[in-house]
C-alpha cells in the first residue's frame, strides 16, 4: 500500500500585473517561506524540491531551475522540474505527492510560478512570430463548438466571468478586483477571440505558489489541519488526431474516471463539496463540468445557469476567483490544488465553503490534452 500523503503547508504570493520589487528567485522564495511558515517547517526539513512553470520562452530564461536552486533551498537535494504546459502546476503537485506516496521522500516542497511581466506570453506562444493566436485563439473554436452542440445561451459565459470575479473579491491573493463587474460589462467588453470577450479571459499575472507535502506521520503532527491527498490521476493525449474531440477530450474523461474510482467517488456532483477547476476562459467551467463527468453531455451550462457553481450553490466552483482572476501560468495549476487544500483544511478565510471536506482540484494544459486531477480530503481515510 502506498504511503499516505498530506498537504501541511500552502503559500502564495499576491498575484498582480507585475512584481518589479522582487526578482524571480525572490518571488518564489516569498511563496516558499509562506508555505513553510504554514507547516512550521524550515528548508532544512525538506528532502526534495519539485518545480513547475510554463515553457521557458514565456520569460526568455532557459532552464531557470539551474539558477533557482539556491533560492529554493535545493542545493545538495534532489530537484526535479515538471513540464506539462498549462497543467504544469497541478502535475508538479502530483509528482511531489508520488515521491511521498512511493516513500522515496518524506517531505517534499512543490513550487510553481510565472513572472509574466518579464516576458511576453503572446510572443512566446507564437514562437516569436507575428500573427500569434494566443491561448484564446486556440481554444475559441472549441468553445464555439461547445456552444453549438450544447445549445447553451451566450450569457452562460458572462455568468461565469462575473461569478469568478466576485469570488476573487474575497481572496486577498487574487489579481483582478473588479468590484463593479456585471453581466452587462462582460457583454460589452471587446471581442478578442470570437466568441470570447475580454472580460471572459484570464489576466496575465506575476506570482508563485508553494505546497509542502509530507508522509502520514508528518500529516498527523502538523500544527494546523492537513489536507489528505485521497487520489491523484494524470492523463494526456495527442494534441491533434483524426476523430479527436477537443471539446470533451478523452484523456480528461478517463483522468476523472480514474481519480473518482481511486477516491471511491461514484457521484461526483453529490460527493464533492467544492471544486477548483482550471478555467482560463469562462466557457471552460461548463466544459469541464461535462469533460469530467460532473454533469452529463450538454448539461454543464444548466448547472451554471441554475447558480449551483456559485459560492452558496450545491457545487461551488472556484471560490478563489480561479484562473479568470489570477493567472501566473505555471502557478495556476498548483493554485487549484493549494486552494482545494485550504478549503478542506478550513483555512480559506472569507472564501471558505462551509463544511467542505472533499475537494476536487484540476489543471489542464497544451491543446486541452494534459490533465492533472486530485481529490483532497479533511480526513485521511
Amino acid at each position: 500500500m502506498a504511503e499516505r500523503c498530506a498537504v501541511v503547508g500552502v503559500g502564495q504570493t499576491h498575484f498582480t500585473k507585475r512584481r518589479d520589487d522582487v526578482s524571480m528567485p525572490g518571488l518564489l522564495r516569498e511563496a516558499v517561506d509562506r508555505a513553510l511558515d504554514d507547516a512550521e517547517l524550515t528548508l532544512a526539513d525538506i528532502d526534495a524540491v519539485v518545480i513547475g512553470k510554463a515553457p521557458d520562452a514565456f520569460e526568455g530564461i532557459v532552464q531557470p531551475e539551474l539558477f533557482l536552486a539556491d533560492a529554493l533551498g535545493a542545493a545538495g537535494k534532489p530537484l526535479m522540474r515538471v513540464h506539462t504546459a498549462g497543467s504544469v502546476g497541478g502535475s508538479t503537485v502530483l509528482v511531489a505527492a508520488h515521491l511521498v506516496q512511493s516513500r522515496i521522500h518524506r517531505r517534499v516542497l512543490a513550487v510553481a510560478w510565472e513572472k509574466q511581466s518579464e516576458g511576453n506570453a503572446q510572443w512566446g506562444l507564437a514562437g516569436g512570430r507575428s500573427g500569434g493566436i494566443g491561448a484564446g485563439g486556440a481554444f475559441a473554436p472549441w468553445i464555439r463548438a461547445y456552444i453549438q452542440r450544447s445549445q447553451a445561451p451566450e450569457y452562460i459565459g458572462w455568468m461565469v466571468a462575473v461569478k469568478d470575479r466576485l469570488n476573487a473579491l474575497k481572496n486577498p491573493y487574487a489579481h483582478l478586483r473588479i468590484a463593479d463587474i456585471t453581466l452587462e460589462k462582460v457583454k460589452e467588453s471587446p471581442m478578442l477571440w470570437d466568441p470570447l470577450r475580454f472580460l471572459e479571459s484570464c489576466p496575465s499575472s506575476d506570482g508563485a505558489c508553494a505546497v509542502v507535502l509530507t508522509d502520514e506521520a508528518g500529516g498527523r503532527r502538523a500544527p494546523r489541519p492537513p489536507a489528505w491527498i485521497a487520489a491523484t490521476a494524470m492523463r494526456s493525449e495527442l494534441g491533434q488526431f483524426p476523430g479527436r474531440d477537443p471539446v470533451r477530450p478523452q484523456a480528461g474523461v478517463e483522468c476523472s474516471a480514474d481519480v473518482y474510482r481511486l477516491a471511491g467517488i461514484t457521484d461526483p456532483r453529490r460527493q464533492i463539496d467544492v471544486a477548483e477547476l482550471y478555467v482560463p476562459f469562462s466557457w471552460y467551467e461548463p466544459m469541464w463540468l461535462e469533460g469530467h463527468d460532473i454533469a452529463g453531455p450538454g448539461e454543464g451550462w444548466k448547472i451554471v445557469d441554475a447558480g449551483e457553481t456559485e459560492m452558496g450553490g450545491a457545487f461551488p466552483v472556484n471560490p478563489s476567483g480561479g484562473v479568470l482572476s489570477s493567472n501566473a501560468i505555471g502557478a495556476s495549476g498548483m493554485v487549484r490544488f493549494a486552494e482545494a487544500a485550504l478549503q478542506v483544511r478550513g483555512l480559506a478565510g472569507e472564501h471558505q465553503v462551509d463544511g467542505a471536506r472533499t475537494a476536487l482540484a484540476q489543471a489542464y494544459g497544451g491543446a486541452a490534452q494534459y490533465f492533472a486531477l486530485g481529490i483532497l480530503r479533511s480526513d485521511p481515510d
Partner: protein
Amino acid sequence: MSDATTGATTTGTAKQHLVMEHLVSLTYRDALPPSLDRFVDRLLEGHIVGHRCPSCSRVYVPPRGYCPMCVVPTAADHEVEVSDRGILTGFTVITPIAYYGQQETEPFVHASVRLDGADTTLVGVEITGVPHDELRMGLRVKAVWKPESERSTEGISSRGWGGVSSVIDSFEPTGEPDAPPDEYRDHVF
C-alpha cells in the same frame, strides 16, 4: 525579430534602472522529414498530397510518415492526392493584440479546414470572400492558390500544423450547400 527600437512591448513601462531589455534572436534551420519534403514539392506545383494508413485507411494531410492511431509507418507508396476543396470545421476571428513584434492590425480568421479525402484538418488558415459574421462550421470552401511565381516554402515547418499560407493565400466559399454536422463534428481541431 523585427526592429528592436520600435518598443511595441508590454514590458517597457517600468523604471529604467529595474529593467534590462534583453532581446534574443534565434534562427533555426528546420530539416523536413521526407514525407513533408515531398508534400512541399507537390504543394508548390498546386497539388495536395497525404498518406493513407495501410492499417486503418485514415488519410493524413500533410503526411506525417506514420499513423499515430495505429503506430505504423507510412511512406511514398501510401501517397494519395486529396482535393483542394473541403469543409470549414472550426474557426475564430482574432482581434490582434499589440504584443512585441505583432504585425497584424486587422481582425483575421483562424480556421481549420478538412479537405475532401482527408481525415485531418489544415489548421490556422484564413477564410476570405465571406463576411466574418457569416462564417459557420460546415461551410464548403476551396483553396485560393497564390500565382506559381509567388509561392514559397516560407512558414512550412516540421514543427507546426499545416502552415501552407506561403502557397495557399486563403480558402473561400465554394457556394455549395453546407456540410452536415457529422462531417465536421469530429474534426473541430
